[in-house]
């Protein structure tokens, strides 16, 4: 064999994909040819580099912890494809509502959703803002939602490494009780399942009708236990120096309970065109451990170098921190404003770009209501203002 022939077979040789006689001929040539040996080692080195880089890139990637839950929803659907799509949309809304800190941002939040950045935002939201001492009806460390505020987040200001974070970046995540989702045929049935009175709008966009599909999501609860060492290491990769975090954050467990929710769907009998979803349920409850000084934590998080100033100032401006759910919205494509609905309740209207849909959230008598869908903000307000009983 000459150099040309050998060179052409070196990759196969390294791969072990040559015949014994070819192998013998190549080895005989290599024994006396430095350039071919050089070439062999260059290919060998390259394979090692590619292998190592691919493994390293893959090692830093991980699927969402919600992947199975998402799949289960799709698997449970027994409808045809159009129906399936609506089912998925409805389920998605349930999931979004369940994750009440970020409703109505259908398409965009995948850069953000279960990343540790969200946990950071939520934690920051509860810890950064000065406590409203007079409103402390709940024992210290228990938070319920009565109103909503948005913080706009510029995806560009989020370090790209944050998207690699997952809920375990700051500690460990436990599902105490997975919220189960079932479909029932009537409001009465849903009411019996969740144990509170359901309300429906009298005024829905013309052409839309309540479908027979009412989705009930039973209570779920999740715990998060912080691991200080892990959190510091992860935050460091985001360029956030977190050396001042309180020592007792280590091992501290925060519990989030999402009570049962019901989603009612309105759409045209044909199944096409616009749709409106109404969700309702008791407020989610976040419980911090008694020993954790959230006030101190707030000061320390505020002083963390590297946290976007735009974010901390927005969080800092939120009043009534104990009862305000913070909804992160991407800077581009969404706007929000405060509105008065359902008998003078303060609501939050979120408007997406065309095609993204609109949403409206408010609280009344301990129940959080959300309406959303591919209808106009005015139609959502009309629906909210016509809720009965």
């Amino acid at each position, binding site marked *: 064999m000459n150099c040309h022939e050998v060179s052409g077979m070196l990759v196969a040789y390294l791969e072990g994909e040559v015949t014994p006689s070819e192998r013998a001929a190549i080895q005989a040539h290599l024994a006396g040819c430095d350039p071919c040996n050089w070439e062999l080692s260059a290919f060998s080195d390259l394979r090692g580099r590619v292998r190592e880089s691919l493994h390293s890139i893959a090692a830093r990637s991980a*699927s969402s912890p919600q992947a199975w839950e998402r799949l289960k929803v799709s698997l449970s659907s027994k409808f045809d494809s159009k129906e399936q799509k609506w089912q998925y949309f409805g389920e998605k809304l349930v999931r979004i509502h369940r994750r009440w800190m970020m409703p109505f941002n259908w398409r965009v939040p995948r850069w953000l959703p279960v990343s540790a950045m969200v946990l950071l935002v939520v934690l920051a939201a509860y810890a950064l803002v000065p406590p409203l001492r007079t409103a402390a009806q709940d024992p210290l460390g228990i938070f319920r939602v009565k109103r909503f505020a948005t913080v706009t987040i510029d995806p560009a200001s989020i370090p790209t490494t944050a998207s690699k974070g997952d809920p375990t970046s700051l500690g460990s995540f436990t599902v105490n009780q997975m919220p189960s989702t079932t479909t029932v045929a009537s409001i009465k049935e849903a009411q019996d399942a969740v144990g509170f009175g359901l309300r429906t709008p009298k005024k829905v966009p013309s052409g839309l009708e309540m479908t027979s599909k009412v989705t009930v999501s039973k209570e779920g609860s999740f715990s998060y236990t912080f691991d200080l060492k892990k959190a510091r290491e992860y935050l460091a990769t985001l360029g956030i120096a977190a050396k001042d975090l309180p020592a007792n954050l280590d091992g501290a467990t925060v519990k989030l309970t999402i009570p049962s929710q019901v989603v009612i769907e309105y759409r045209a009998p044909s199944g096409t065109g616009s749709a409106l979803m109404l969700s309702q349920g008791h407020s989610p409850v976040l419980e911090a451990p008694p020993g954790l000084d959230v006030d101190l934590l707030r000061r320390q998080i505020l002083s963390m170098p590297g946290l976007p100033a735009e974010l901390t100032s927005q969080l800092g401006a939120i009043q009534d921190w104990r009862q305000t759910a913070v909804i992160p919205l991407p800077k581009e494509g969404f706007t929000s404003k405060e509105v008065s609905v359902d008998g003078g309740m303060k609501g939050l209207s979120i408007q997406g770009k065309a095609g993204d849909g609109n949403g409206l959230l408010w609280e009344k008598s301990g129940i959080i209501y959300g309406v959303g869908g591919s209808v106009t903000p005015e139609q959502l307000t009309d629906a909210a203002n016509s809720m009965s009983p």
Partner: protein
Amino acid sequence: MDLVTRSLAGDQRAFAALFDQYKNLVYKTAYLLQGSADDAEDTLQEVFLLVYRSLSTFDPAKGAFTTWLHRITVNHCLNQRRKRRLLLLSFDKISPNLLPARDASLEQRFAEEEAVRASLNQLSEKLRAVVVLRYYSDLSHLEISQVLNIPVGTVKSRLDTAVRSLRGALNKTEGAPARTGYTQKEAPK
């Protein structure tokens, strides 16, 4: 009974365990082929929906479950890319300025990954699939031929072309000479 058989019998727990066992295989392969966490997440969903629906067509006599799963995953990724006409592989990039200061080895590692990523980017999706299946998934040439439904000889030639292209691309990025310093004419016989 194994998880596949139990899943086929309608055991939902078995299917959940099957998902748990193989989600990384699907997600990470998709991530390397598609270069986007969002796309890989969607692929994970689509692939397991397909697995759920077509598990009964899996024939252990024709090959391992992982080979079958790789085939569904790679086909899905290639179809998606065709649909979206994506030309570039854009792994979520690491900005060196976000790394902790003075960690030279880490910076070097990311620079290395970036160089490999950029060179993979220059490969056609068919060549990239062979590279990922061989050097990440560690499949044999025969297994790759089963996954891609092509002859073993084609796997061999694609891998050869891919490795040489990667070398050319990396040398270009790093400014190294393309060849060993002798020309074919001068090469010793």
